[in-house]
């Protein structure tokens, strides 16, 4: 594939307890972010109310697996979780209140030369949001494994 993936350089400073709590907050209805899950069989707009929702949304994206030898099956089920990086960054800055993360997304995404290509940008957004959410879990003493287990058994 001619796609250019980059290693994310940005290092996010560890947030304080209050900031971490604020970053994990769910926003209200009017502030929600809408991502679109694109599949060949149709499109599904997804309302996203928190950084964790954004991560779940990206979890359904397998666009960056395309081109792998074993990915033919996934290709048929290709799902692109589409969020324009600029739009996500703006939402993170204005609604989540995490300017550092927003800026990191914009800076890292701008390193991809082709203005249209998406999977590397998705990977950057996913990695950075994931890093921030994990930081917040750690700062707040949230057990990641327990969180995942309870999510699946809830």
């Amino acid at each position, binding site marked *: 594939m001619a796609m250019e993936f980059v290693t994310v350089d940005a290092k996010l400073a560890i947030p304080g307890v209050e900031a971490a709590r604020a970053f994990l907050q769910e926003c209200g209805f009017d502030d929600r972010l809408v991502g679109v899950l694109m599949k060949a069989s149709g499109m599904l707009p997804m309302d996203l109310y928190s950084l964790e929702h954004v991560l779940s949304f990206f979890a359904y994206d397998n*666009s960056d697996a395309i081109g792998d030898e074993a990915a*033919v099956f996934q290709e048929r089920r290709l799902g692109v979780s589409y969020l324009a990086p600029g739009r996500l960054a703006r939402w993170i800055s204005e609604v989540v209140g995490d300017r550092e993360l927003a800026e990191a997304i914009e800076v890292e995404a701008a390193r991809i030369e082709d203005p249209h290509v998406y999977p590397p940008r998705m990977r950057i957004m996913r990695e950075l949001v994931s890093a921030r959410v994990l930081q917040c879990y750690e700062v707040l003493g949230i057990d990641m494994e327990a969180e995942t287990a309870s999510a699946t*058994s*809830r």
Partner: protein
Amino acid sequence: MANGYAGKILVVDLSSGEISSLDTADYAEYGGGHGMGSAVFFDLCEDKTISAFDPANVITFMSGPIQGTLAPFGAGRCEVQAIGPQPWPVEWFTRSNFGGRFSGMLKFAGWDGIAVTGKAEKPVWIDIRDSDVTVRDASETGDALWGLGTYDAESRIYELVRGGEESDWTTYGASRDSGRLAQNPAVVSCGQAGENLVRYAALIHEGGGGAGQGGFGAVFGSKNLKAISVIGTGQVAIADPQALMEARAWWHENYFDWDDYKPSLPGLHSYGEGGGGGNQSGGALRNVGQRPIGCMGCTKLCHGGRSATAEMPGSSCFDTWYQAQSGVMWGNPAASPSNTDLLQQYGINAWEPSMQLPWLVGLYKQGILGPGKEIDSNLPFDQVGSDAFNAAFLDCIVNGTDIGADLKEGAARAATKWGRYEQDVTSGDLAIAMHGYAHHYDARTEFEWGAGSALGDRDINEHDITWVLYWHTSMAPLYGQPQALPAKEMVEMIGATLLPYADPMMLDFSDEGIYSDNFVKFVSWHRAYTRFWKQSAMYCDWGITDWLNPWADGYKGLTPEIEPRFYNAVTGSDTSFEQGVEMGTKIWNLDRAIWYLQGRKPEHDLLAEWQFRRQTPAAHSTYEIPYIMPVYENGEWAYKNLWGRTLDHAKYDDFLKRYYAFEGWDANGCPTAETLKKHGLDKAADELAAAGIV
């Protein structure tokens, strides 16, 4: 004469218990599938103004000549039609289609279709074993099927028909040689949603196959009909077996290269290729541990098996999306497979809960819905996405408890009752696109999808143009790849197949182009092409149209050659591609006449308001996704990103007027007597005249 038809259409009147048949020859002018179904419905349902739940409603299951044969993507498709409880505000005569084995098995049993009318006094199921047809007791004191989920009902019927002899053959008929099979019967059933008249209840056939849109599961429920089972030991008589085998070899040679997996764009699969191709060349499924599952005679086998744990057997496509909707948005992607299975067991059309859920969560977030709120609900919305929430949500719909009492009527009717329809459909927070159906592909950009759906009875769900002129063209830049073909070459290649017009200007998706006379022609062509070749001849929507084929020189696919080639080999006719399109026009006019007999008005041809307003609405919601389509601007063809476009009321209204005129319809959109008679639809013209409509 051997021509692919079995020769008879089964008619079951559940009120009287009478079992009779119609001669297929009387309906052969419609080809098969949808055309035949419309014509049979027209004849058997005398009063078209009745409600979907009226015992006199007629539900048809239609096969056609190529079903049960080696025609690719055709053997297993089955068209279902009736007055449907799902469409809104009018319960339109509507359609759905499912794959699997049912249609082929029906042919092997000697039937081209089934029409069911009346209402049984108590729950029943229809047991078809070749020419033996029995209406059997499905109640607790009989075969105890009522109350079961669809998968469970199907398994129970396997036992009942096969006498528990799962490992051995079963003999059908009086003598040993009359017919022996080791196969299970093909079963289509409703779940508890259908029994309880949920307006979007689906009919399910095997794992994941189903007629979702329309609410046909509830039509079953209203008739006290749990299931239809069919086992056939016969065969389909082909007019020209040699031509059929040659066609199959030709298709095999040209449609896909089994030894050379070659996606049409690097990293993307082609239209026709799918898991089956991958499976057979030994790659994909072997690597990810999935089983190939699909319809009779199809090499694509697109149903897949989602998980090694046997959850979601055969579920693919939109039936798996409900779980994505709940899981993605609320942090619980792992909750998925069991939720899809629950949906299938209940027999719920996945589109509705997928549309309802974000709307309901929005109302909850706004403090409008919840305990003691304006819309009172005790559902655990604080746990949305969890298995517990999903079970409670689907249970309340199926059982009509809590807000389920309103939601079982569908979001459009619930929103109307709650006084929210206008506000929420104008804002787009409730993403109804037309006729009460959920947004699917975007009418604002893919106008043929939106207008075609609005002019009909439901979301068209036809992935042909959308595949080559939206999906591929939008995915290429997303992956940093060049387009398969420059815009001009692409539209010229596809345009040449739009017979009889052969005009690439019909594919101009520019802001002006979608309202042009060329696009009027394109919408008309598209309605006719799909009505015949996809829904009446019944080539699967996911197999054909073959417009862009990576294994062919210059990407030129097998359309328009493939459609008539198999059809003619089986029927022995000399039907051209254009004649098929012409038959499609006739069938489209018959459907339109039925809708006018139901009370159709021009306002029913409109699209929901948000598609005229919503570009980037409040907050951060948007539909800014790449939507790259061909446009003809400033004298040349180009690909353009059309995201953010909204429709224009005045232009849309004007488009409708010109469309009506193009089809030979009157100013109210009703086919004129002259038009109907031109298509040989004299009976429809007479009935409309008798009703004072034309």
